[in-house]
């Protein structure tokens, strides 16, 4: 089970890296992570939600 879990996490990480690399192509069919975050934070409500997610992430990783 552990090996299967590790393989799946590695595959998901590899796909994430591949998608990021694809965004560097001139005729990229994939939006960059920055463009995605930009779209999410265009409205004030989106900005507050993303900032709260960022705060929760830090608290969860470093304090809990």
């Amino acid at each position, binding site marked *: 089970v552990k090996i299967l879990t590790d393989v799946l996490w590695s595959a998901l990480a590899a796909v994430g890296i591949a998608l990021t690399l694809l965004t560097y192509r001139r005729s990229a069919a994939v*939006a960059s992570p920055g463009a995605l*975050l930009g779209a999410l934070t265009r409205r004030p409500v989106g900005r507050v939600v993303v900032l709260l997610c960022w705060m929760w992430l830090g608290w969860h*990783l470093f*304090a809990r």
Partner: protein
Amino acid sequence: VDPGAVSSDRPQRAGRRLGPIVALVAAATDAGILARTQPFTIASDAWCAVSFAAVVLFGLALRGRTTTPAAGPSSPLSARRALPWTLWFAAVLAFELINLSSAPRSQHPTLSSLLNQVMSWSPAKALVVLAWLVLGGWLVRR
């Protein structure tokens, strides 16, 4: 060119250059301190709160003083271009929830348990904290 205008512009330009450097040094110091705290302690809670406040204040202070590349109208985000990331995020979220509801954690590691193994070495934890602070600063400045 009016020499007076040039000289009065100089402190502003210096501030524009120094601002990000000061913010980065402060973030590195903050990362070093937060990386040395133990989770589930008042110190880690308090230092996280200090980090939140510092990032928001620094971000707001630097906002508009430095130039950030804006997303131009020539490249609007279409649903088609966002679809691969949406599918990827859904897959990560689904797998995270499956692992979270499974036991034991050693057999079904979640993202945070995997990251905890990396962060057991404090320099690595400091780098993760620094990346988190830089991301927060970037979000606040938008």
